[in-house]
């Protein structure tokens, strides 16, 4: 029996939160250092998990091949009024799909802590909420019990609301409420489907009886479906299709998928830099992760029916997001829309339902996390100094801040998928995977337009902000300081490393992705054999 590493990595920030809350109000510096330490330990733990990760185990639907599993009964009530037995497991585990995201969360949170150094408004509340948010995010990626997953999902909502609403820009209340309500709407969909699935899935207990379960892995196994459950494939009058749509919508809001994306630009524009970094770097991935972890393997037969639409929405995200980005004048809003565009690649890759597509999608999640984190930091650096984000108000910063501009160049070119940097290989995999599927081939070809559009708006921005004659107004701006170096260097290193040696990440997820693809295929065969559709 190993140590409960996953609980440790998940709840460590809670410990930090308690420490921060216990500190006197004047000890702002100590709070910062505490948070930095806690998130630093998290990175170390994540790297430790990675180094002890067994690459040959698949996970996905099979508990035995999940790693660092912790499972025990958390809530168990024998006769809960008319429902009967209620049980919730505390069930954590990681496989090749969640491990990259755990790593990403740890890294991005650590960088975001560094970037929080400039926050000076009620530090206690800020760092306490920040750490709570951290727990929520980490929890989502390690939970294998739907109930637990949902709790973490909701847990991160509240701190996010306050972090935008209190520490944000001028229109922070509007943005925070919009974010909160929109995400809450999504959560309700997820909640409904979760309850429906609970009453449609039974799991054999130790005493031989069968009981309803929230276990995600049990929900994936069609043998566990009850005969009459509302979301059971065995029930001829099941509502699985509607449930799929609801669940998908719930996750899609988080991605955010067109047309549910408009909360994102507002939230980003108002959020302080570190929160934007976390929002774009980690939070958006929860949507696509949820689809991969929950929607796809639990509803494989409906996924199969809808892949064309998923790919179509991916395409719309890519193209539409790029066009919208091109139209923006606010630097941060532009980056926010570029996220919409880049998350479209994830959707497109997942829709391929083959190894290259899904690998590309997960890799794209990781890469987008690091690259967009850099992009938001870039905006943050300039906003800290100039107190404006109006793109046309800048110009010629490359002369004034050469080192900073060097990192900008790396991040921008990574974002437009330059080979040698990480964005290329994930985009290429997405396209290679999706093109291989006849059904979505045309959609894929149209999506390749994103390659040009991305280069268009990114280089145009690069030119307007950094090239040309230096605007005299900015001749006093200083280049990066040590703390900012510490934010940019690790991220650039990851971006370059994964661009040159993508196998580091691809090997990590390969077994899981393969077993997922295989599982989806097998289960589709099974469903057609019982003639449910």
């Amino acid at each position, binding site marked *: 029996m190993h140590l409960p590493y996953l609980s440790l990595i998940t709840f460590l920030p809670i410990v930090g939160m308690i420490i921060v809350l216990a500190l006197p109000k004047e000890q702002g510096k100590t709070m910062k250092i505490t948070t930095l330490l806690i998130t630093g330990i998290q990175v170390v733990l994540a790297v430790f998990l990675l180094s002890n990760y067994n690459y040959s185990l698949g996970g996905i639907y099979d508990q035995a091949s999940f790693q660092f599993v912790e499972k025990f009964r958390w809530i168990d009530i024998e006769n809960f009024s008319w429902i009967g037995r209620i049980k919730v497991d505390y069930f954590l585990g990681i496989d090749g799909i969640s491990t990259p995201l755990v790593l990403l969360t740890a890294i991005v949170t650590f960088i975001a802590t560094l970037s929080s150094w400039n926050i000076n408004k009620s530090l206690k509340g800020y760092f306490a909420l920040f750490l709570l948010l951290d727990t929520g995010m980490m929890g989502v990626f390690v939970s294998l019990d739907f109930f637990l997953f949902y709790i973490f999902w909701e847990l991160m909502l509240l701190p996010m609301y306050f972090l935008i609403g209190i520490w944000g820009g001028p229109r922070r209340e509007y943005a925070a409420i*919009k974010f909160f*309500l*929109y995400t809450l709407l999504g959560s309700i969909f997820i909640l409904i489907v979760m309850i429906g699935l609970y009453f449609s899935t039974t799991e054999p207990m130790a005493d031989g009886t069968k009981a309803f379960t929230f276990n995600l892995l049990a929900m994936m196994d069609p043998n566990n479906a009850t005969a009459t459950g509302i979301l059971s494939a065995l029930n001829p009058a099941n509502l699985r299709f509607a449930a799929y749509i609801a669940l998908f919508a719930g996750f899609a809001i988080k991605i955010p998928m067109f*047309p549910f*994306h*408009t*909360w994102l630009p507002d939230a980003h524009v108002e959020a302080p830099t570190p929160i934007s970094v976390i929002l774009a770097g980690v939070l958006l991935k929860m949507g696509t992760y949820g689809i991969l972890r929950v929607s796809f393997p639990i509803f494989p037969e409906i996924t199969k029916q809808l892949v064309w639409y998923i790919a179509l929405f991916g395409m719309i995200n890519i193209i*539409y997001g790029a*066009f*919208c*980005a*091109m*139209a*923006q004048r606010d630097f941060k809003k532009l980056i926010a829309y570029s996220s919409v565009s880049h998350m479209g690649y994830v959707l497109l890759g997942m829709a391929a*339902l*083959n*190894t*290259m597509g899904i690998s590309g999608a997960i890799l794209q999640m990781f890469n987008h996390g690091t690259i967009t984190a850099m992009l938001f930091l870039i905006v943050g650096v300039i906003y800290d100094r100039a107190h404006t984000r109006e793109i046309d108000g800048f110009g*010629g910063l*490359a*002369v004034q801040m050469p080192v900073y501009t060097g990192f900008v160049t790396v991040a921008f*070119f990574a974002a437009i998928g*330059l*080979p*040698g940097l990480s964005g*290329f*290989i994930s985009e290429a995999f997405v*396209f*290679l*995977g999706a*093109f*291989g599927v006849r059904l979505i081939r045309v959609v*894929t*070809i149209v999506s*390749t*337009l994103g*390659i*040009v*559009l991305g*280069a*268009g*708006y990114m*280089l*145009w921005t*690069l*030119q307007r902000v*950094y*090239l*040309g*004659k*230096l605007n005299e107004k900015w001749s006093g701006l200083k280049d990066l300081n040590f703390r900012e170096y510490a934010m940019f260097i690790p991220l650039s290193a990851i971006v370059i490393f994964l661009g040159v040696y*993508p*196998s580091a990440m*691809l*090997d990590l997820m*390969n077994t899981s992705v*393969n077993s997922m*693809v*295989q599982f989806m*295929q097998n289960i589709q065969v099974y469903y057609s054999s019982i003639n449910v559709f």
Partner: protein
Amino acid sequence: MTENLMINIAVIILFLPFLGFVVTLLLGSKIKKIYYFENFVLFLGLAGSIIIAFGKLTSFDATTITSEFTWINLGNTPIMGEIKINLGILIDNISTLMMVVVMLISFLVHIFSIEYMRGDPRYNRYFAYLGLFTFSMSGIVLTHNILMMYIFWELVGVSSYLLIGFWFEKKSAADAGKKAFIVNRIGDIGMFIGILILFTTYHTFTFDDIFQQISQGHLPFDSGFWLTITGLLIFAGAIGKSAQVPLHVWLPDAMEGPTPVSALIHAATMVAAGVYLVVRIFGILTADAMLIIAVIGALSAFIPATIALTQNDIKKVLAYSTVSQLGYMIMALGVGAFKFAFFHLITHAFFKACLFLGSGSVIHAMHHEQDIRNMGGLRKKMPITYYTFLIASVAISGVPLTSGFLSKDGILAGSYAFANLTGHYLFPIVGFFVAMLTAFYMFRLIILTFHGEPRDKEKYEHAHESKFTMAMPLVVLSVLSIFFWYTPNPVNPEDGWVLSDWIKAPQLYTPENTRYEFMVPDEHTNVQPGSEEIMYSETYVEAMHAIHIPAMILSLLIAGLGILLAYLFYQWKRIDVGKLVEKFKGLYNFSFNKWYFDEAYDATAVNGTLGLSRLLGRFDLKIIDGIVNGTAYITKGFSTFIGKFDNVVVDGLVNFMAYLSGFIGLVFRRFQTGKVQTYLVFVLVSVVILLFIFKSF
């Protein structure tokens, strides 16, 4: 020399410039003299490339040496099967020759730049970028698979972006860099989709694996049509990179970069990458694909040549001339004159680099004056520049005893033979006509720049011959534009080692029914790989032989005519240019304004995209977000209504109840008198009433 050694040297010279890039970039601000490192590294690269070329051409003449490693291994996957992505290098005659060209020109440009760029605030950075470019270009040359080709293709794009926009404080330079990158990317989309088709069909990126499968009859989507489409899609990448019509518009703008960069990137190497790509995939091009390629090439030879006639910027003339010459090469590939296309690539690289560096020398001497109307008479001030420029101009015009004569004559003969066999006579007509235009505009350039009287006295006075480091590359390149490097016989390149030994005829892999008839070889026994017979039928070889002498005489006459016209117009002034321009005002403007390509693109593609983006941006804000905010608004309105309802109706009802009970209380209070007697009477009456009621039960 063993194969292993050659592979090792190739890998080393591939990464040497990259090392130079990293070191020079990182230490550039600390160590002033670090650019020497970059130059030294390039020298090693050049030496290495020559060693490989020597080894390859002497010891392993007919063999192809490859070496690869697995970059990404997904193993055996459920739906897609075995997926392994290999990267590797390929050493054959074509790639070794190309390596020497790239390294040599890059080295000379480095040397030239030491003086040319002196005093620039980002001096070391400039050399770092040159290193990055050389690395990327070498990658394109040495790759054995199309994915790596694409990777380095994009890297070339980005280094070109950095170098064109090197003086990014100038808006025009920044614009030009951006334009180059984006226009190139449009072509790259085509190439990328082509790669997608290849990978989906063959599950590999390696050229040789793909070619072998095609030769076994395994075609994309099982049809020759899709093989054509695939070839053309990949060719789209070449259209972008080699600045072919209609994507040529970035190259003239790219002249905003430092002039040595123009020599390296926009004349000799990067733009030749497109031609090199077509050379690499030549074996899988069908007849239909080749015809379209030839048409694109012919258009690209013709249109820019007509534009070059009227331009006044010395670099712009050379830029359009470059597009035109690249068009020749592409057309040559399209008409099947494979060897001459690659031969012209090499010869053109040298004389065009010489021309660009020569123009750089002039611009340097004239303090960044580029307008030839302000030049003139420089021959006396800058003799070395003048004579090297002259030799290169003679070469590009196709005058005998030069390298350009050999290669261009081959292309013209090839297109003529092609026309004789297939009836497409437009190609030779365009070819010969463009040859005349080339001779004309090159000599117009020379006469206006170097001959006659100086038109800007002040600048002329300050002009001076360039120093050794700038003059030496000019001399080397101009000497390389003379025939004896390529063949002992100045009128027949076929006798020379380049065409008879070094450049081999390629293996064709396309199904025979999709090829031109003349490219279906006759049944031969004992065919040497790389010989003509492997590629062409005997009719073609005979047609080429028959056409050789007439084509040569014709091209000679035509080049002479072009030069003569230039002298009549500008040197002897026998024909009044001004009057002629007046007479053909429309045509002149059309040419002077570059056929209005930029205007047309701005009006359609650029403004269309920007307009669409603004439209969608507003749509997003007003409609999509409007719906969200509208929903919120309606919800809020509804809740206000409910609130009112709650206040007025529900609460009103509650209040009414309270009021009612109060009223009732008021009524009943009357009964509460506080007197026991009254209560007793009430009780009594009540009991009687109750008794009455319950009696009935």
